[in-house]
């Protein structure tokens, strides 16, 4: 097919040339930033993992965003509180200090508390799961905002952050694959454990008894109950464990990626994670892959402002308001949600409260 008239018709804009420029820009700019992309993907992947665990057992968790926000705040504020009590120098690998560990544990505890609340409301009280999750989001935003206002009056210093492991130069400088090495190894402890947790969850979900039971409860709880599975207990357990994953993702934001807390710093990551979960067809590895895609767009939105592409592509992009690139991940989420959701089938009992058959 002859496409020259088409190209000429576009008023001399060399479409193919632009395409090559775009690809060239991506190839040039993405591998050196692979570490940052993984950092963007970590909270998304952990939150998506929370979504997978909850929804595979039949509980919709919209409150992931709020859980992450509360954990991020807790990690930071507990770090502020306990930091003066310990003077030990950070360890060589990961920069681990006692305050940071305490902060992390506190963040996980808060996440556990919140997800238990969601479990109680949606499993025991059989409240609408979306309303329960939304209220958790509103509550987390309100409480962290209030406490942050109170505490930030004294502008306290945080407990620092976990540092990244530096893999040997021999590995990161390998031609062709060096950027993959730094992507996964030039990371802090939470990002690294996220990778392990995701692979572990994949195996767990599809190769273990608990995983089989989880999927059974998510598809047909009544049938699962008739073969002796305690639906209520399993759902509680999954929601609570999932909540801790979300908490880990929240803690990552305030004590690994940065060492500060900003109001609403999760910025919709909990919701983007839900889209990543759907795109990944409710599997941990699929969700991780989707999280990486979203993370690439989040990172590109920043890179375009920092290191804009040159040539014709650059001059076109500089004509577009910068806010468009900031909005890109959210638009992408909608597009993917609309495009993929029809072919991606949720667990059959997702979102439905379960009521035991009465003994009488």
């Amino acid at each position, binding site marked *: 097919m002859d496409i020259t008239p088409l190209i000429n018709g576009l008023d001399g804009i060399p479409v193919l040339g632009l395409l090559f420029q775009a690809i060239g820009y991506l190839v040039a700019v993405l591998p050196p930033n692979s570490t940052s992309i993984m950092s963007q993907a970590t909270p998304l992947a952990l939150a998506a993992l929370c979504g997978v665990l909850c*929804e595979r057992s039949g509980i*919709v968790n*919209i409150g992931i965003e709020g859980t992450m926000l509360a954990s991020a705040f807790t990690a930071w504020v507990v770090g502020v509180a306990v930091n003066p009590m310990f003077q030990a120098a950070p360890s060589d690998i990961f920069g681990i200090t006692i305050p940071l560990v305490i902060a992390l544990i506190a963040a996980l505890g808060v996440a556990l508390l919140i997800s238990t609340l969601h479990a109680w*409301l949606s499993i025991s*009280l*059989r*409240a*609408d*799961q*979306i*309303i*329960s999750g*939304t*209220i958790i989001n*509103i*509550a987390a*935003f*309100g*409480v962290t*905002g*209030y*406490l942050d*206002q*109170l*505490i930030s*009056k*004294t502008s306290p210093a945080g407990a620092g952050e976990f540092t990244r492991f530096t893999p040997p130069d021999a590995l990161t400088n390998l031609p062709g694959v060096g950027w993959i090495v730094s992507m996964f190894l030039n990371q802090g402890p939470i990002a690294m454990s996220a990778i392990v947790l995701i692979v572990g969850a994949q195996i767990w979900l599809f190769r273990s008894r608990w995983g089989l039971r989880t999927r059974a409860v998510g598809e047909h709880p009544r049938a699962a109950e008739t073969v002796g599975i305690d639906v209520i207990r399993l759902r509680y357990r999954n929601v609570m464990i999932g909540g801790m994953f979300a908490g880990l993702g929240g803690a990552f934001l305030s004590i690994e990626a940065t060492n500060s807390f900003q109001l609403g710093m999760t*910025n*919709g990551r909990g*919701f*983007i994670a*839900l*889209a990543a979960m*759907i795109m990944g067809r409710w599997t941990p590895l699929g969700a991780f892959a989707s999280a990486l895609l979203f993370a690439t767009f989040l990172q590109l939105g920043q890179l375009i402002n920092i290191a804009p592409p040159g040539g014709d592509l650059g001059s076109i992009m500089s004509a577009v*308001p*910068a*806010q*468009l690139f*900031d*909005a890109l991940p*959210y*638009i992408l*989420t*909608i597009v993917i*949600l*609309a*495009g993929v*959701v*029809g072919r991606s089938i*949720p*667990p059959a009992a*997702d*979102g*439905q*409260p379960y*009521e035991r058959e009465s003994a009488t």
Partner: protein
Amino acid sequence: MSAPLVPAPTPVRRPPGLASRVWSVAAVPLVVTVLSVLVGAAIIVFSELLVPGHPFDLGLPLVAYSALLSGAVGNPDAIVSTLVYSTPLVFGGLAVGFGFKAGLFNIGAQGQFLVGALGAVMAGVALADAPAPIAIPLAALAGIIAGGIWGFIPGFLKAVSGAHEVVSTIMLNYVAVQLLAALVSGPLKVPRSPSPVTFDVGNAAFPIILGRNGHLGIALALLAAIFVWWLLYRTTWGFEVRAVGANPDAARYAGMRPKLITIATMTFSGALAGLAGTSVLLGVTHSMTSSFGTTVGFDSIAVALLARSNPLVILPAALLFGGMRAGAGLMQIKAQIPVELVDVLQATILLFLVASPVLRRVLRTGGRRAGPTGVDTIVASTGGEAVAI
């Protein structure tokens, strides 16, 4: 979807008197509000411990609450200010509540609010010199249409591809924030202004009809609540909306078209939220800065939930939250409690509300073993199709 949830039968030993009827309706919201006030007091006392060097005072909650109250209803100006704060909450609450009735959860009220205000400011600036009787309706209409478009998108996506409205509306909230920032710091910006701000809407501003700053929007909010009630309970379309919300399958067998209703409901809901933004822009701010945007979106969800989506009950619910917002400033001045305490109070009210089955059991409203009736009304109103996100 589980079996249709039947409200627990109320005991019919004797015809209930007016007092007990009122009690059974008002008990839960009242007790919930009182409990939240107590929790808020505990939080105030606790937060005194957090700020080092603050003199510890057990009476501070009393100081804070009395300041909140006098800031909300203490004098005629305060009451008008409460009405002004409540106005967008009525529109927003109606928007979210109308969605609930069709089984749709429109969390995107915030985005539709922003885009609605954006539409109003664009039309308002263009019509700033036109005579007011022309400028005001056209600017308001622009806001309504803009909000409606922002609501149409998730409704259309839901009907066509099944994309769940919760995620898509939240994403559109973030897109709306960026859109607003791009326009206010770009084409709409006053040239050579040091900070991004648009021109004043001039003649398109709502006239003041009450006190010092009570604008036309207050009257519109009252009319809107009545209109939505009439629409829901006295028109065929309202019946279809409620039927689709109660049971989409049954509605489809009865010859209704749930997908069309979904699109129409989301568009109408977005238009109402857009009107909320319009009322703030044309009634209060008259121009737009890049930080335009309030907590109206979240507050609207709270209002709709507290009022159980009933358009007429939304009025007092909006007054409650509007009053808290109006009084928060005075509370911050007199008791040094951040205005964000209102967010906390609101969240506790919602949490107690969702846990209201437990409350009902304690209060013994609605029979010996009331069960989850309190939530059922909410479940039944958001039910619809399986809520897989």
